[in-house]
């Protein structure tokens, strides 16, 4: 059969946003693939250069609406490093709690999209139903559901209400029960295993060389969780285990995310228990000079903010390292030799978020 290019996108159910994956197929077999991105480029890095340090958070929130707190937090860390300030202990704990709640919400969004991708539309409804609960928790914390603008340079925006711990415990107890159900729905389904096992192999060495990070790297068997490798905030004082799978395929990546949700629940509960009283925010200086960078474990991988300043109250240059942007480079290698239907399994298991790719 003749070889021809098929555009998967920009308007396509698989893409989860606005990007285009051109695949070259021979009948059903993929010979080559080429991601085409940039449809959603908003110039966040350029706009940041004319906004004050604190006001950039509004932009970093919108890098990825699915996990806005983690992105703002990465930016805040970098700016705090630049200014040389240390935030109060309670602020750190509040950040960890909000980060993990956001991570669960983001992973649930992934679960929903992954289910819909491989044809299990019911999963979409189930996962979004549970995501609501975590969005509600974020709303209780921050006042907003999606672009919460919660972490600030110097701490967090506000303290949590008095009964927050109780609502967290209730939501998590309910969620863990449901999570068992979802794992049942996926892991015990022969069809699901057929679609994911052995698909999209990416060995550990390849993954590191291609710059793949986060759950995708842990699915390839690398023991890299930046929350543990390069601890920030108070992750080194909290009791948790990174999730690592050795199979290197779509199945391993999905299991890593499932297990990460459990670990995030554990972190939230533990952090709530260990959270000290005290101030949650400090006043940062207005101006800064020099350059600084910090890496954090975003829900999709390694997020790096490099901030340079020239003594003004605005950053001179903000550079965002988006994990999925780098992972996309490895996509053609993962796809070659698989079938057209595997495109959705592979892209679904990577967890695409176009907002952060295109910046």
């Amino acid at each position, binding site marked *: 059969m003749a070889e021809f290019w098929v555009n998967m996108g920009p308007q396509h159910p698989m893409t989860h946003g606005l990007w285009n994956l051109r695949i070259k197929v021979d009948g059903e077999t993929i010979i080559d693939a080429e991601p085409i991105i940039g449809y959603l480029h908003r110039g966040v890095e350029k706009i940041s250069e004319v906004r004050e340090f604190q006001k950039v958070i509004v932009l970093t929130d919108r890098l990825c609406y699915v996990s806005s707190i983690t992105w703002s937090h990465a930016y805040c860390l970098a700016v705090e490093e630049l200014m040389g300030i240390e935030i109060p202990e309670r602020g750190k704990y509040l950040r960890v709690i909000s980060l993990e709640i956001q991570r669960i919400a983001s992973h649930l969004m992934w679960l929903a999209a992954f289910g819909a991708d491989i044809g299990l539309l019911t999963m979409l409804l189930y996962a979004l139903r549970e995501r609501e609960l975590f969005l509600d928790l974020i709303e209780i914390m921050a006042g907003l559901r999606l672009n919460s603008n919660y972490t600030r340079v110097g701490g967090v925006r506000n303290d949590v209400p008095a009964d927050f711990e109780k609502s967290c415990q209730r939501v998590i107890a309910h969620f863990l029960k449901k999570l068992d159900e979802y794992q049942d729905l996926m892991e015990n389904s022969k069809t699901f295993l057929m679609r994911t096992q052995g698909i999209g192999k990416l060995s550990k060495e390849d993954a590191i060389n291609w710059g793949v990070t986060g759950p995708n790297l842990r699915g390839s068997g690398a023991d890299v969780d930046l929350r543990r490798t390069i601890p920030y905030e108070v992750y080194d004082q909290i009791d948790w285990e990174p999730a690592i799978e050795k199979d290197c395929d779509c199945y391993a990546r999905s299991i890593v995310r499932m297990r990460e949700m459990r670990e995030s629940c554990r972190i939230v509960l533990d952090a709530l228990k260990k959270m000290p009283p005290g101030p949650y925010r400090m006043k940062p200086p207005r101006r800064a000079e020099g350059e600084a960078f910090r890496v954090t474990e975003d829900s999709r991988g390694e997020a790096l903010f490099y901030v340079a300043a020239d003594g003004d109250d605005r950053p001179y240059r903000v550079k965002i390292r988006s994990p999925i942007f780098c992972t996309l480079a490895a996509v053609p290698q993962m796809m070659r030799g698989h079938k*057209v239907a*595997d495109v959705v399994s592979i892209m679904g298991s990577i967890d695409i978020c176009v907002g952060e790719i295109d910046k």
Partner: protein
Amino acid sequence: MSGSLLTPNLVGLCRSLTEILLGIVKAIFDALSLPGVGSWFVSPGVVVFFTYLIATLVMVMWAALVNLLSVMWVERKLYSRIQDRRGIMLGVPWPWSKKYKRGMTNLGWGFLQNIADGVKLLQKENITPASADKLLFHAAPAIIVSSTIMVFAVLPFSENFYYTKVALGVLFVLAALSLGPFAIILAGYSSNNKYTLIGGLRAAAMMLSYEIPLILCVVAVVLLSGTLDPFQMVAVQERPLMGTIVPSWNVFSPPQMLGFVIFFIALVAELERIPFDIPEADAELVEGWTTEYGGMRFGFLFGFKWLRAFAGAGLLVILYLGGWNGPVFATVSVLGYPIPILPQEFWFLLKTYLVVMVIIWISWSIPRVRADQVLKIGWNRLIPLALLTILGAAVFKTMGWF
């Protein structure tokens, strides 16, 4: 004792209806002192013509409106329930109820939603792609619709509720259903779109490989019951099984149990339901071979998929589940006619809808299988097992065990 609601049969009923109607027409013309025109209307040829016209209309309406709408409604309600939501709820209160003045409500059963969707599709523009092969692009939906309606020409709903009685009815249904793949591949090619092309190719590959086990299973059933006539096939299944009160439905006989499972899987594949819906996999091929169709043409393709599901389920019920056999046949006499309380049509529709619901249940709870895996299942598993079924049926037939 005939347990059917219709006596003597559909065409007979339509004939009496036609005679009454034409009698009224004749009376009108007689009153207008045009007796020649009036008597032409009751001449045998005209009566037969109008009888079959009305019978066709009734059958098409019954199949394509009543059952299509209710199958769609069942599907939408059921999968909404599986997904923990209520599904379509748009409703209009009865004119005599107090809520009628408030108009449409969101707390209804939602049965009218499908009609609303159909009206919406009718209002939409029928877009034909500029570079499409116009003739084939227009012919493909017509082939699908007509071949699906053809099924109902011979598919009996009870002993008396049928359009025609054909001795080769089962073969006819299979033949009509087998025209679908050709129309799908035509639609896939003529749209001049890569998604539809891949979808059409997948459809062709899949249907070719799944029609074989389907027909092989039917061969096993035919071997045991010794007929291709759906009526006799059901009659064979009526007698009790080995002296018990359980009826001897084909599904209870050992070789046919396997055949039932294979037939069911092949049917799900033939109907493009989710574990095997690779020709129109919406996540990878947008909508597969239906991508370029719009308006009511898409509505036809989409709706007649359900009608095919209904017809396939009906065939399954006739072949394996004892057709219209039901346990209770209490009758009440109304104006001298014996009217059964639970007529054969009830049992047939109950079984058919149960089969449809199982298909829906499966398709909303497991992911889609990949194209090459589908073919692998078909050729490596189902066909050998179907051949085994035929072997088993032949052994049972020769030994006279069943």
